[in-house]
């Protein structure tokens, strides 16, 4: 029987991967970004691994019982911290948005603005609404997309 308790280490590494992979990989696809089920599955696997690892760490046939318990306890705690950070960042922190009660409602006139386009030329909302597109047709409307701030 191997003496090294690989389960507690694998569980911790997996929980780190479950955290990081959201921001580096899964955010690129709406299906895994809107609700991070893929990452929650990975965290679930980490929890299962950690369960078996802790059981082993606290079993009576360890070569160094105290060291096993400490290692198991520390890694399990760290993994829980990583999971907590993930839940906070994705579910709580991302919802800490201003109320925006003053944003225009359906049926209201959109506030006017004039801003620089990529050539530095000033473009107004009224211009966007009245400049013909595709030859001579006037636009049916304008879609305004406010992105968070930085690409």
């Amino acid at each position, binding site marked *: 029987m191997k003496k090294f308790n690989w389960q507690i280490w694998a569980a911790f590494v997996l929980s780190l991967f479950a955290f990081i992979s959201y921001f580096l990989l899964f*955010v690129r696809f*709406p299906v895994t*970004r*809107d609700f991070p089920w893929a990452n929650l599955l990975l965290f679930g696997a980490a929890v299962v691994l950690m369960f078996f690892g802790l059981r082993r760490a606290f079993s009576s046939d360890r070569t160094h019982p105290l060291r096993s318990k400490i290692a198991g306890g520390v890694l399990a705690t760290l993994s829980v911290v990583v999971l907590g950070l993930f839940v906070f960042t*994705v*579910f709580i922190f*991302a*919802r800490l*948005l*201003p109320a*925006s*009660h*003053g*944003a*225009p*409602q*359906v*049926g*209201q*006139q*959109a*506030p006017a*603005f004039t*801003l*620089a*386009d*990529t*050539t*530095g030329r000033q*473009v107004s*909302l*009224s211009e*966007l*609404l009245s400049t013909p597109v595709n030859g001579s047709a*006037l*636009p*049916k*409307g*304008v*879609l*305004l*997309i*406010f*992105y*968070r*701030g*930085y*690409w």
Partner: protein
Amino acid sequence: MDSPEESRDLSKQAGYTFTILSDPNAEAIRRYDLLHAGAGISGHDVARPAEFLLDASGTVRWINLTENYWVRARPEQILEAAKLLK
């Protein structure tokens, strides 16, 4: 919040054909009440993500004010909303 030059570089790289406007002083962002003060990198102001579909008269016909900034409107949602403009 990107400058026109930064947006132009990105637009060229990605092959975008739509108009990108820069709002470095958050003028339009404030007018639309979308300012998210200090939430950007280094404590800069950013906008709370939102999409507004206007008809030809400039009246708002559809809004998507996301509650979670990881979740944005999908293209299908916007195309569906665009049917309102017929």
